[in-house]
């Protein structure tokens, strides 16, 4: 188990930053320093402590004194003009939680969000479904899958609300097997996808008949969130017999409405009793957190043992995640070369890129959102919504398959960077330096205060090479060497001598006039944030 044994020793800055970037969106400089003095086990333990949400009440109504919105009643019946704004308010609330969450929760919530795909819907049901992902972020996948099945938005999105005994709709049943849980295996023959067959889809759809979406007021007592309902006279009452893919299991038909939930639970259990389901989740987890590539060696040394762990934990994912993030493998120390595989080996998703940069450079001037509710309806929202959209990230993936950058081979994270997104990628430094949107130069509450940032976050600023080294260590996954380091150094020096920089910095400290050091620091900042290296993590 050398791949998965915990990495011994203190992390140091490089590995602390690696862990934090991969496992959260909240990576300011002081947190890297703090984690540098921890062991992997200690650090991951800290990340697994899930704090309360910043705003468990969800987005507030910025037009009405910031009253809570989506937990107090359905609000999707207002005038059309507000629908889009309210929906974006949900996303804005999500982004705010991501920005402020020091734990692994929102990386995991995003992971579930990108697996259990839906699309725009009523604003309150958008809130409800994302709440499920938060609640079960490091919790039980089987429970999550069961609850997602009964989620109103999902019931509508994949049409299970129209799935009735006389007119079955297989959409959800199919995607549940193909995309949400066990996944399609190699095609063995017509309608046989190894892990399940077309006949299993027919049977699954029968299990799912009669589950319909319902009102806001109809709550799941465990989560307090709205949930769908069972309607017995729409339900297929016969027994459902699955194929050899599921050991010819027969699930007895429900005898009444309450028994429909038993039947559904048995069906979910049956799928999760397949080892392959655990493997499917672990492979996705691995691609999401560790690497785009799964070699045969990794399959044997990492995927297999982790999926056994997940399976033995009855799909409680926390331990599996702990093992993975603590492991030598995660820190690329399972073999003799600790620099060739994992660290810097993924392309940042738009969220990692934008939210990460806001926190890394202390650029969040919005503060805590619900205390400044006007930002729900301003450029803060437009920036987070539109800039990310221009980088190829929409809050809801464009297809039920999810975000290609997370799950689609063979390119995986490379999907995040192409001709259509490059301009906005490289314009992020502009937005953060100017505090403006790229498109029309409108103010946003995200701006880096450059000189104080360099003054507060580093030491020995008067030594140019020392300052550049500290900045690169903070910003990039690997320290540039030789000629490349000199390239960044020269950006600060502007082809003048290090002595000149020393005089400039000392002059700034004495006079408080930051004009000339700001010029140099801006050049350095643009070069680093605009570099290919900064796109990786």
């Amino acid at each position, binding site marked *: 188990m050398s791949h998965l044994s915990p990495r011994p020793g203190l992390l140091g800055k490089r590995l602390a930053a690696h862990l934090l970037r991969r496992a959260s969106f909240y990576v300011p400089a002081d947190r890297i320093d703090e984690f540098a003095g921890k062991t992997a086990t200690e650090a991951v333990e800290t990340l697994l402590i899930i704090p309360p949400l910043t705003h468990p009440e969800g987005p507030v109504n910025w037009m009405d004194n910031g009253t809570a919105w989506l937990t107090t009643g359905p609000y999707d019946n207002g005038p059309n003009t507000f629908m889009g704004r309210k929906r974006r308010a949900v996303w804005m609330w999500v982004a705010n939680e991501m920005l402020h969450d020091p734990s692994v929760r929102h990386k995991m919530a995003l992971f579930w969000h990108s697996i259990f795909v839906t699309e725009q819907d009523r604003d309150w049901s958008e809130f409800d479904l994302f709440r499920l992902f938060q609640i079960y972020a490091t919790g039980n996948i089987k429970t999550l899958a069961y609850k997602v099945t009964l989620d109103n938005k999902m019931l509508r999105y994949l049409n299970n609300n129209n799935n009735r005994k006389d007119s079955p709709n297989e959409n959800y049943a199919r995607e549940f097997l193909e995309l949400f849980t066990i996944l399609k295996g190699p095609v063995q023959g017509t309608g046989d996808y190894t892990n399940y067959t077309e006949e299993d889809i027919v049977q699954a759809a029968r299990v799912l008949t009669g589950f319909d979406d319902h009102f806001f007021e109809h709550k799941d007592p465990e989560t307090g969130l709205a949930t769908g309902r069972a309607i017995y006279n729409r339900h297929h009452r016969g027994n459902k017999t699955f194929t050899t893919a599921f050991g010819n299991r027969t699930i007895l038909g429900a005898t009444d409405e309450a028994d429909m939930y038993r039947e559904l639970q048995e069906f979910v259990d049956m799928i999760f009793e397949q080892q392959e389901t655990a493997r499917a989740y672990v492979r996705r987890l691995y691609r999401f957190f560790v*690497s*785009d590539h799964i070699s045969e060696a990794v399959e044997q040394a990492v995927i297999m043992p982790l999926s056994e762990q997940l399976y033995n934990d009855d799909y409680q994912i926390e331990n599996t995640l702990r093992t993975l993030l603590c492991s030598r493998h995660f820190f690329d120390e399972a073999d003799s070369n600790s*620099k*060739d*595989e*994992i*660290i*810097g*080996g*993924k*392309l940042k998703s738009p969220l990692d890129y934008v939210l990460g940069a806001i926190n890394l450079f202390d650029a969040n001037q919005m503060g805590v959102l619900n205390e400044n509710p006007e930002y729900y309806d301003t450029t803060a929202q437009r920036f987070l919504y539109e800039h990310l*959209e*221009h980088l*190829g990230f*929409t809050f809801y993936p*464009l297809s039920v398959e999810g975000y*290609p950058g997370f799950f*689609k*081979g*063979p*390119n995986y*994270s*490379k999907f995040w*960077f*192409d*001709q*259509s*997104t*490059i*301009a*906005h990628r*490289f*314009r992020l*430094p*502009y937005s953060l*330096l*100017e505090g403006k949107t*790229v498109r*029309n*130069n409108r103010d946003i509450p995200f701006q880096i205060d450059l000189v104080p940032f360099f003054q507060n976050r580093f030491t020995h600023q008067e030594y140019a090479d020392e300052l550049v080294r500290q900045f690169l260590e903070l910003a990039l*996954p*690997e320290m540039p060497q*030789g*000629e*490349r380091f000199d*390239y960044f150094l020269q950006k600060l020096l502007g*082809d*003048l001598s290090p002595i000149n920089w020393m005089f400039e910095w000392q002059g700034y400290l004495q006079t408080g006039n930051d*004009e000339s050091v700001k*010029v140099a620091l*801006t*050049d350095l900042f*643009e*070069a680093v944030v*605009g*570099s*290919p*290296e900064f*796109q*990786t993590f």
Partner: protein
Amino acid sequence: MNRRNFLQKSAALGLYPLLGGALPLRGLASTTPFLPNPCEVTDRSVVIIFLNGANDIFNTAVPLSQFSAYTQFRPTIHLPEQSLLTLDGNLSDEQALGLHPRLAEFKNLYDDGLLSLVQGVGYDQPNRSHFKSTENWLTGSGGAIQDQKDGWMARFLQDRYPGYNGTPFDGEPDPLALLFGNTISTGFHSAAEHRLEINLSGQDPAGFYTLISSLGGAPIPQIPDTEHGSILSHIQTISNSVNVYASRISDVFNAGTNTADYPDSSLGNQLKTIARMLSGGSRTKMFMASKGGWDNHNYINQSGNTTEGTHANLLGDLSTSVNAFQEDLQSLGLDNNVLTVIFSEFGRKIIQNGSQGTDHGTLSSMFLVGKGVEGGVVGNNVNLSDQDNPGAPNPAQIQYDYRQVFSTVLQDWLGANDNALQSTFINSAYINNRPSFINPNNLVPASCYYTPQPPVACACIRVRLFLEGFYNPQSQRMHTQLLEQNALPDQQPYAAIPFAYNGTESVVTWPADTVDWLLVELRAANDLSNVVARSAVLLRADGQLMDTNGTPGISFDEVADGTYHLAVFHRNHLAVVSAEPIPTNNPSFQYDFSADEARAMGDTQLKLSGQIWAMRSGDADHNHIVNNQDYNLWKAQQGQAATYDSSDLNADGQVDANDFQLWRGNRSKMGQLK
């Protein structure tokens, strides 16, 4: 480094080229990505000058027959009658105009027949907000059409060049639109999210390449052979491909020249740059320049000396800049190809306000300048006494919707047919009853209008390729005799060895212009011998590969998105392989084997035939070499009629000396797959 340097860089930061849009464009491909060039108007361009802030048209061109009303409504800001330059003594009272004295160059352009003025232009229910009205003008909104999201210029260009995805394509190496000045670029915004324009505002085009190529910073000297390194390579490769326009912009600018003296003003410099780029070979279709400062609510001119002051200086700059531009184009020999259009988002009130200025109005006029123009005045003067409360021209006096004016430009100057106009301006009211101002010598004849081709959805690769044996350099097409003689097999013909392709492609209804079947293969980017997928497709007479339904583009089932080499086989031509790996997940990507010999991997794999590079004929036995075995096959059949026989190299139904000549021309040529 100094502060100035920093400021320049900061300014530049806002000006990255917006080649890409938000989301990758899915499923947009074209039925006809290749430009028809029937009537030689593809060299033409339009330069649009936007007078941002709403020019006061009544102090620009004064209706002479209403001079007393004019002075009555503008007691302290009117121009003295004796200062006005009579535009044309032959005009009727309804049209007679006196130009502002600082428009002397406009007067000269008019006298030379190079300037046309369209009167009473606007749109129904005019909006008097600068921002909204500008947006209307640029998006084609206003009146019956409200709140268009994309620009009409983008709609026009996308119809004209369907499938355009923001990268150079054959014959059009330049960005389709270039934007100068601080104009908002709504006009080019495209709903399809692919930005059509490059914003050159405030840039030095000579250094544009340097600026853009530094987007991702200096190239990384040594990219390590690690996962990290593979991501870095990916980023650098993409960045380089995006920079394609950047070097081109610098190149055409540096290759170009100016011959006229321009005023050293913002507008003068914008026009000077445009002329220089055109002279350097730019084929950009639309340039947009702008000049601000026209929103003169206060002191439009000097008290007591109304021919001087703010407005006078603005008009003087406009007049001298446009004149220099025209002179420059003429001496560069480009004046037949460039039409200049000048507009403002609305006009101003007839009645002056209390602070020696004028407030927002309704109707205005447009100027058109160039050798293509039929000089003159179109439409009558606005009746100054017929006012909308309070004090602006009654919008009912509108004579031309602005879209009708642009429709004339698009049709008479650029050859858009009515369908193209309809799809650009949406409502037929805005494309009918167009004004005429293009002179007969430069008018695109109706027989030359092009028809827009709607993009069709396909998840496919578009490929263009010609077969030497079928190609006619005169018609620039391949013949379709096999189709006409009903000789094409309904089932794909590549089942036999050595192809041994067992696909089930078949044709029910033959698509028009089908030439023959081809077999295409994806091969691994790093291992040519690794065949990833195969498919039998049809070849169309214009070189387009299409599926068996006639939809252009080829696709493969069950292939992971990525980049692959594309191999193309024909039953008696030497197979070719793409020199570069081709992406399967970029629906608007096109690979044109006919554009360059280097498009096929290996040496001398393609043969120049007329203007294009074609696959070499002669490999009748499909063994990737043209040799005596092919000759022997020909010899055995020589003199006989043939139906779909591989030795009939030109597929004309006869195995004869013409086939021998094709074979001889390629004798001993070896294919890359040998």
